[in-house]
């Protein structure tokens, strides 16, 4: 067994995933790079440090589960799966193409490592509740992690699920909110305000941890703290920057749902390659 990657290495992996995201979405000519880039640091931490999983045994019964509720950011999930060895990296460039296992949104049964199908927003937390509840019923120790978008929280079903998770004491359920404050039409607070977001989760009975979602150490510490909960589910609200890592994509809602053009692609790749070791 090799040593688990340290903070610098995790940061490097996150940036490699960012490069993957740019490569994939550009090759596809479409996709959702902005929210993929904002979640890259979390995904690197989860797939290379936090998750108990075995890429060569995707069905391992006691594995930790990950649900990407904001399914449109499938590119960063595919990048994490490929970087950690679920399938060959070359396959990333088939994203969104006919016959590919890398569907535009994650599809269970198509690709190893995809637990459920997501993409229609607001449903992942309910599915994660079901997975966490199954573990609890069977006295399993696995954790279920669920990544939510912040705009996605406008879907009411999330709050049904939040009630349920607290009601059933699903302490092995850990949710992340990628709080990048942008959705397709613009600022979340202008489209449909989410603030005060921590108070909403508190009111639903969840433990709330607020971190800088681009600080690897804070992500690691928050995950460790969340796992200490003996009673309630935990939400980790990650303040993030949409498009993080590529200067002209940062905080630019235009890149919520479109890929780079050739010039942008060159610029993005140059920026990312400059920071990747």
């Amino acid at each position, binding site marked *: 067994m090799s040593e688990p990657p340290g903070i610098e290495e995790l940061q490097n992996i996150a940036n490699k995933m960012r490069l993957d995201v740019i490569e994939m979405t550009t090759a596809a000519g479409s996709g959702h790079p902005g929210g993929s880039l904002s979640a890259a640091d979390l995904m690197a931490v989860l797939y290379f440090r936090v998750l108990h999983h075995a890429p060569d045994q995707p069905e391992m019964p006691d594995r930790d589960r990950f649900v990407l509720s904001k399914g449109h950011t499938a590119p960063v999930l595919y990048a994490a799966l490929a970087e950690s060895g679920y399938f060959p990296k070359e396959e990333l460039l088939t994203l969104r193409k006919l016959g590919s296992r890398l569907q535009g949104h994650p599809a*269970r049964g198509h690709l190893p490592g995809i*637990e*459920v199908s997501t993409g229609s927003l607001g449903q992942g937390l*309910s599915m994660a509740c*079901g997975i966490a509840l199954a573990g609890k019923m069977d006295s399993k120790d696995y954790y279920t992690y669920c990544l939510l978008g912040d705009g996605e929280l406008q879907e009411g*079903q999330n709050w049904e699920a939040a009630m349920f998770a607290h009601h059933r004491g699903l302490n092995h359920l850990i949710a992340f909110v990628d709080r990048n404050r942008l959705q397709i039409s613009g600022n979340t607070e202008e489209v449909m305000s989410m603030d005060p977001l921590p108070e909403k989760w508190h009111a639903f009975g969840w433990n709330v941890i607020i971190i800088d979602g681009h600080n690897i150490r804070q992500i690691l510490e928050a995950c460790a703290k969340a796992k200490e909960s003996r009673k309630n589910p935990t939400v980790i609200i990650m303040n993030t920057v949409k498009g993080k890592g590529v200067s002209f994509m940062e905080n630019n809602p235009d890149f919520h749902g479109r890929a780079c053009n050739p010039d942008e692609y060159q610029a993005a790749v140059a920026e990312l390659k400059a920071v990747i070791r």
Partner: protein
Amino acid sequence: MTAPKLAQRTYYGKALAQLGRDNPQVVVLDADLAGSTKTISFKKVAPERFIECGIAEADMIGIAAGLAASGKIPFASTFGVFASGRCWEQIRMAVAYANLNVKVVATHCGLSVGPDGATHQALEDVALMRELPNMTVIVPADAYEAFQATLAIADYIGPVYMRMGRSEFPVCTPEEKPFEIGKATVMLKGTDVSLIGCGQMVQACLEAADLLEKEGISAEVINMATIKPLDLDAVYDTAAKTGAVVTAEEHSVIGGLGSAVAEFLSEVRPTPLARVGTYDTFGESGSADELMKKYGLTAADIVREAHNVIEMRDEKS
């Protein structure tokens, strides 16, 4: 000897209780209607595997999907309007697209729900569910068949929608006959006209066959308890034999059993056909019997349509 009048949901509850004792993978979810859907019978024998979701049907479907993804066999129940409509898109993505082993079982379907009125009378649910890829759609004829079908879908791996009514009505199937998904049952052999029914309308078809027999018309009655996958051989064979078909369902004629039969026959063996069902309308409050009469879902309506299709066939020849 008159057949006992029994509610399907009561026998659904009995079957769930049996599964609660026999199959540790079965879990049951409900959305604050356990007393009405009778999932409460499961709760009594396996309370640790009964999952109350509160009045949150969309969440219930997502939870069921998660449970199925973890190896459980979830039965999620509520009234048909909510089960098929409120969470249609949840069923579409989380269950059907993911091809997860979730059983959505609806009670209180059709006009016979009665006084609660149109908001609670699902007349569109079969159409909504039939449309979904990977989905199996079952409409048992009576309480006994509901019991057997519940056991059968627990053994079958894949998404299922099963539809039941609210009221008590006479049973017409054998109590002990195991249910075969996708297999129609010939309830009565005949040569002049085919009556293909599902749910409570199978009983109405049998009554219609009695009435027709008195006029010297031999009706074949088929219980099409699986709407999808449709038993194509059974439809073809009976249509080939009689050349005149009436379908009967307690559901809109748009998208339900009648549509399924018409779509198939019009492609492979165009046959004079009439559909008994509701015609692009909501229901209303009233007693079950009053509503079935008003909206044309009685044995007399089936007899009238039988005459029509026989006439159409004979004009053609």
